[in-house]
């Protein structure tokens, strides 16, 4: 069972629909006890960084999620969920994040159109079970204005070029995250979600 963390944002059902089509059991929950006992966690996200941290705090999920990241539970952040896993964000900030992966969330450079919306390519930096079967150059769907800049380049699994080469997939131990939306990235995205379920 995969637990999708509900903190009052919108794309939860898309993630659950994707798992349903893969015949992988998942549940949406905001209950701290359910989340505490989860075997695998998805932290989705759409919206602003500060609001999202506020919502997590209001639901008493900040320490809980940090604890789950520390105890080895596989955790996958999606889009804003990726950004929340980092130390802090520049968006209306600096605002502190969950700090599971050291690094800062920065605004995309001014020379490109922001938000970055659409299908862009993954460039694989190293092999990782999350991306098993995903070919170099695969297109995935992005919608974002900020990107994460990890302190340790070793935490970068794949990048995407949009004005700069930014982190599209990151991993630190049992914590993975994608800047794009796998649940909206058709076959490639479904493959990634299936890989996560199989970890």
């Amino acid at each position, binding site marked *: 069972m995969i637990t999708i963390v509900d903190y009052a944002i919108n*794309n939860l059902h*898309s993630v659950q629909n994707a798992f349903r*089509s893969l015949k992988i059991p998942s549940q949406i929950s905001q209950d701290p006890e359910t989340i505490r006992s989860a075997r695998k966690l998805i932290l989705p996200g759409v919206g602003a960084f500060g609001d999202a941290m506020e919502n997590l705090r209001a639901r008493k999920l900040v320490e809980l999620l940090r604890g789950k990241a520390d105890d080895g539970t596989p955790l996958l952040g999606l889009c804003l969920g990726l950004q929340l896993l980092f130390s802090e964000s520049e968006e209306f900030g600096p605002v502190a994040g969950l700090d599971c992966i050291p690094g800062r969330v920065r605004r995309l450079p001014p020379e490109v*159109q922001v938000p*970055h919306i659409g299908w862009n*390519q993954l460039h694989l930096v190293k092999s990782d079970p999350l991306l098993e079967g995903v070919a170099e150059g695969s297109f995935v769907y992005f*919608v974002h204005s900020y990107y994460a800049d990890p302190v340790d380049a070793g935490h970068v699994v794949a990048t995407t070029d949009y004005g700069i080469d930014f982190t599209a997939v990151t991993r630190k131990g049992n914590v993975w995250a994608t800047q794009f939306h796998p649940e*909206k990235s058709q076959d490639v995205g479904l493959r990634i979600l299936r890989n996560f379920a199989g970890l």
Partner: protein
Amino acid sequence: MLAKRIIPCLDVDRGRVVKGVHFVDLVDAGDPVECGKRYDRQGADELVFLDITASSDDRHTMVEVVQRVAESIFIPFTVGGGIRDTGDVQKILHAGADKVSLNTAAVKNPQLVRAGAEKFGSQCMVVAIDAKRTAAAPGPAWEIYIHGGRTPTGLDALDWAEQAESLGAGEILLTSMDRDGTQVGYDLELLQAVTSRVGIPVIASGGVGTLEHLFQGLTLGGAHAALAASIFHFGTHTLQQAKDYLRARGVVVR
């Protein structure tokens, strides 16, 4: 590289996909869930669903259809038609849409675009513009129409596009009423005029009959995405053929 998007559009009337010429003479083109699934499998980059008679119909049917389509596709999904306030926006997003497309409501109440962008983010606010060429100068070259193309507004399409961007729209879905359903190609002058006026992505719509037309809209027209209905619904071309053709002509597609 960021790919150009090919977007099939489902015009939905009372729960069925339809297609007309110049916005009238509707022909049945199938079940929305089946069409959506087929396009998702075929490689559509996004799906647009416009409830063309929403203003006069039962809203529940629409929310229910949106939900069923959203459950069966794994690409971004935009829904428009009859959305009047932020409550409607929320309902549609909650039903599983990723973006809403506002047309009449945005023209009548531009602050709705701003309110939606502030509450849900610019990325989910699409402003749809139905533009028609006007007789002659002086005055705007293209006028916008509302109520599904039935009501002229006297407003200049280019000015409105610019205003929509400044209100926080994330994208513009630009339909040429003169070309809609005619299959003679996009109104490239209209596209060029709008894409050079705004910084946000423009989705070209109205008039695609051949794959060459898609190419023209995405290159000469400057559009980020090409929307088409007739050529896909009636099997003239598949999405794969469209992608192969564009790739061969040097356009980056998924």
